[in-house]
């Protein structure tokens, strides 16, 4: 199972979500006001992604 592991296909979305989450976690720590608002939006994205895929699976 070595030669052609599709790394970006398997881990791509996860890596993007991880970056978004980390930015969201840090931004509220670094400032108030807009920084907090950015944090809420960024951290809401992974939660929205979960809901999206769950809805998709129930529509099938």
């Amino acid at each position, binding site marked *: 199972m070595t030669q052609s*592991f599709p790394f970006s296909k398997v881990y791509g979305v996860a890596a993007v*979500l991880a970056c978004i989450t980390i930015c969201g*976690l840090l931004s*509220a*720590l670094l400032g108030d006001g807009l920084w907090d608002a950015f944090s809420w939006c960024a951290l809401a994205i992974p939660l929205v992604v979960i809901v999206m895929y769950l809805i998709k699976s129930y529509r099938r």
Partner: protein
Amino acid sequence: MMSARRVRTWYRLHKWTSLLCTLFLLISCLTGLPLIFHDEIDHLVSPVHFAGPPVDIPPVSFNAVVLAAKRQNPKLRTLFVSMEDDEPQLNVGMANGLTVQSKGRKLLTYDAYTGAPVQSHQPGTTLMDKLLLLHRGLFAGVAGELFMGLMALLFVIALITGVLVYGPFMRRLDFGTVRRSRSRRLHWFDLHNLLGIVTLSWALVVGATGIMNALSTPLFAMWRASAVPQLLASYANRPPAQTIITPDQAADAARHALPQMKVTGIIFPNPVMSTTHHFLVYTKGRTPVTARLFTPVLVDAETGTVALAKPFPWYIRTLEVSRPLHFGDYGGLPLKVIWAAFDVTTVLVLLSGVYLWLSKKRTPVEEELDRFVHLEDLNSSISPELGAHA
């Protein structure tokens, strides 16, 4: 790079580290959920009205409330006086012994404008306090805290090995595949993968900061052991401070030494919490980041001179930054709601993991892994298609 044997090792590590910590993690998640809203619940249960807005320097002197507390409890020892951050409330901590864990501990609270006692409960008596003690260390003190720290470490290992096996299992599937029509087990398997991978970073951060928080007692002991002996060398053979300055004088000395900092608490001379010859004044910065970072100031209890005003070493700083990242209390109510949603999702990942373990003694996945390891041993180049067999 990814032999079947290695994947099987990761898989086993993931399975066993998860199973060992799952029960304690469930306790953490379930007690943590209401604790996210600790402040809101406290305000709702016992609303307190103060004579003014939060202040930097309390209009009432620290000494006035310390004396009032002492009049009320002449037999108890005064441990500290502190001021709340978001409310003009002064706290006086007292106990029979030398630490806040001692018997007969009492927290007396006062309005920083009027010095009037504020109606409040004793620490450790409310439901929220009990949940916190359970969450932190299963009611078992420092030993319990260290145990929960170990469970958090297992959790972090389970997360990392979980990511490592996620790849091989998902190589034939699209991201977010949730198959509902085939079997209940497959459905839960897909949910476990989806919820787990999406909340991974949050869980890693909360798990790692949980380890840090569990180590707070030994870390502070470490700092004291490194800072105090050389400080006390010049006091050798002298009796503990007799006539001591007021806490307000100690606070002023600290403010003078660090004018940009805000005084948040003053620990009285005490061989365990400060030293027998010094007030330990806690100060912190005023920006969102520096407000998390405390600088201790040791003030000679007889002369009022500043003996030490140096930021904490890196390990205490790491601990200080770990706190908000664990509690989620640093970005207003919306962040707390998000924290709660991640917490609930983590519970679902844990429960689905337990279900996957219980649903079959020996799962097809494990048999497949064994088969592929065997094939590999025979120098076969066949690739396991784990996703299809899960």
